[in-house]
């Protein structure tokens, strides 16, 4: 028996990529901030990252998310948020001086991967199943 309710269902690949994007978005800078002395943001981002990583790897969570009927515009908003934030980060990386103690290369790498994962998550929205 199909446990799905009527409404928009997002494919599992969307949830996996979305959780992976959030994990990359939060865990990598969280770990960096923990080591660079920004303990408060470091702990918050690391904790969010661990939760996102668990959601990425957990089969039961993914199944539950896949079965939920969700608002498609909200899913679109998430993708837009990821892409806009990644672009802002890229701009920050470019504006940093090359001799800066903050590595613009690392920042650009993080932003680029976030941009790719955000784009890939957005591509999954094409497979949204309309209400049954």
């Amino acid at each position: 028996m199909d446990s799905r309710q009527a409404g928009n269902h997002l494919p599992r690949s969307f949830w996996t990529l979305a959780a992976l994007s959030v994990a990359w978005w939060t865990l990598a800078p969280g770990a960096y901030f923990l080591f660079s002395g920004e303990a408060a943001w470091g702990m918050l981002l690391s904790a969010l990252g661990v939760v996102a990583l668990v959601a990425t790897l957990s089969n039961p969570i993914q199944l539950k998310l896949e079965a939920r009927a969700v608002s498609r515009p909200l899913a679109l908003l998430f993708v837009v948020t990821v892409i806009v934030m990644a672009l802002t980060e890229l701009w920050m990386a470019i504006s940093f001086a090359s001799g800066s103690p903050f590595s613009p290369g690392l920042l650009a790498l993080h932003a680029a991967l976030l941009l790719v994962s955000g784009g890939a998550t957005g591509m999954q929205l094409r497979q949204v199943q309309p209400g049954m």
Partner: protein
Amino acid sequence: MPQTKAKARLGLVVLILVSFFAVPIATGVLSPGTSAYAQIDFTPNVATLEVTVSPEPATIGPLIRTPGDRFDCPVGMPERCRPELVHIIGDDLFGWGELLGESGLVLVWITDETGTHFLVVSADDPQLTSLPGADSFMELMELRLDEIKYTGERIAEGFGSGATAGVVVIGLLALCPETAGVTCLLAGLTAGGAGLGNVIRNAILSSQSQNRLEELELGIIGRFRQMILTITGP
């Protein structure tokens, strides 16, 4: 598609088999033990060497540093050139520290496009400690460290705001019932907008801070050159 998978699996198996032999050899685990060498019986046929005591050579003491000593280091490896210091104020690019075992002498360094440049100065050099009407090397260094800390805080806040907004939106997406779509969308838009606003604010502030940091570093380089001129000048 199954053929590709089978090929990939075969490649993986070959890689693992090869690594069974390659890794222990590469890491030295499979190198011969000492017992292997102990089996060789070698009796040297060499006449006993008569040893005569030769006079002791003159000992060469440690390198003595004096104010005005300078040395340079190529770009990217300042920690290899730097002698031992009691403590370090600053980082690999710009900083100072008291030379270990030579109280009263301080090593200062700056970095430009040609590499890192070191200079030994007296600890009571006014250009280093305090200058009337101008910032000394130490004061400029302190300002630079404050600016770096400020930039770090802005970057962390920017990251935190952006990521938190993203987490709120995905949380709403995962938890909101579809029937409350408009309400959740408005909440998501508010979170996203607030997050983006804070990211942009912090990005602008950190960009301005970077400009101030560059100015401070130019000031530090200028003070370093002044110190060279004062020490080595007539």
